């Protein structure tokens, strides 16, 4: 009960203090997705320097031109992150081959200290991800914070070196515009799948 009371306080605060309370903001975001989107709506507006699992320097826009599923994780995560990768692989399996071939997957680590390119490559191999279409990326703390901010992902480093983070899978179109954002893992991901399949009949380019 106390949790709900606190949530209510948060809601009141946001409504009273913020010009954009959460509910209204969600409506707004929804509308923005449906409207014609100028270039300013691409997350690729962020100029970010990252490194992939083979040590190659890349930008956040490395897969411009393809639909991209992007999320954040850390390699030593014991619980949810293996499930996150499994979810992404399950989404792939459920797609028609042509759409799957065009899809790219980007996972950005929140743990630059331990998730070196070598560690990420070992994980990619251990999880049998298709490295031609998947990239596991690391970046400096500041860049990680900015990417998390763009994707609406919350995270906190704990004293023991592990992390709490929200699991959010975001589908970007070929230009880096957010099409669908799904919180939580282990679900059906029906919204992501629907949007990915729709891309076949209405290609963005």
């Amino acid at each position, binding site marked *: 009960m106390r949790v709900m009371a606190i*949530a209510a306080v948060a809601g009141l605060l946001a409504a009273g*203090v913020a010009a*954009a*309370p959460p509910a209204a903001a969600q409506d707004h975001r929804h509308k923005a997705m449906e409207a014609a989107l100028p270039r300013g709506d691409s997350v690729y507006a962020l100029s970010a320097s990252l490194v992939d699992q083979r040590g190659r320097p890349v930008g956040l826009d490395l897969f411009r031109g393809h639909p991209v599923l992007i999320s954040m994780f850390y390699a030593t995560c*014991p619980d949810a992150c293996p*499930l996150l990768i499994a979810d992404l692989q399950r989404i792939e399996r459920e797609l028609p081959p042509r759409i799957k071939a065009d899809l790219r997957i980007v996972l950005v680590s929140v743990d630059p200290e331990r998730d070196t390119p070598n560690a990420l490559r070992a994980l990619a191999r251990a999880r049998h991800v298709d490295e031609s279409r998947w990239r596991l990326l690391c970046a400096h703390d500041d860049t990680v914070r900015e990417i998390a901010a*763009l994707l609406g992902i919350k995270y906190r480093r704990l004293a023991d070196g*592990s992390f709490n983070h929200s*699991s959010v899978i975001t589908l970007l179109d070929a230009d880096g515009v957010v099409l669908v954002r799904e919180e*939580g893992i282990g679900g059906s991901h029906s919204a992501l799948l629907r949007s990915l399949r729709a891309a076949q009949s209405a290609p963005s380019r």
Partner: protein
Amino acid sequence: MRHLAFVTLALVLAGAGVPAASPGDMARVGPGVLRPVYAPAPGVTTVDVAAFRLDRLPVTNGEFLSFVTGHPGWRRDRVARVFAADGYLAHWAGPAELGPDVRPDQPVTRVSWFAAKAYCSARGKRLPTEAEWELAAAAGDTSPDGAAEPGFRERILAWYARPSTAELPAVGSGQPNFWGIRDLHGLVWEWVLDYNSTLVSGDSRSGKSADRLPFCGTGAFTAGDNEDYASFMRLAFRSSLEARYTTRALGFRCAGDGEVASR
């Protein structure tokens, strides 16, 4: 109930000396120790905060105007929409003009996290972390632990309870606290670097079913100092924010590492 994800920060300051009198626009704060009530991890009750520098005053409209003029990519008519929502600097008369109703000495508000971060970066500074900000804000008039001073928490809560309809006063109208920092309470809310670090469980925010894992994490959240409502409310407010949001009562100030430089 079980995975309460708000941090309440009760303050335990260890060995805080009298801050050195320092000229300039920044003051030295800390070192100190925060005791988070929303324990960041099981068994963890304190967070050490290294000494840092903090702007004595929030950033003003005038200062932000000169930033926007020098970095036109942050003008409201040019900024990428992923970096700033529609309300960004909407109270200014024009993209590079305050107009008659906005005073240069008022704290700038309606700025997004990205814009605040870019401003600090352009000044060779950074946003303070949540722990740093809370450490600075926990100080009273005469000691680093304001909670020990009569009326401290009541004064802050009285401000939170007041509707923010009135015109914002100029920065610097509040008294300097123990560290020499002004306006941490009573003027505007302020962005922090890790505003997005407070995880609220899915069932308390979005009503999603609990069988889907909203978080990856081994930490359990517990509550601590339940008297510190003000910290609690700040955390609740921050947890409702997204980086592109702008509100008419949310501003910021910048921080820096280490000792106070002569600027």
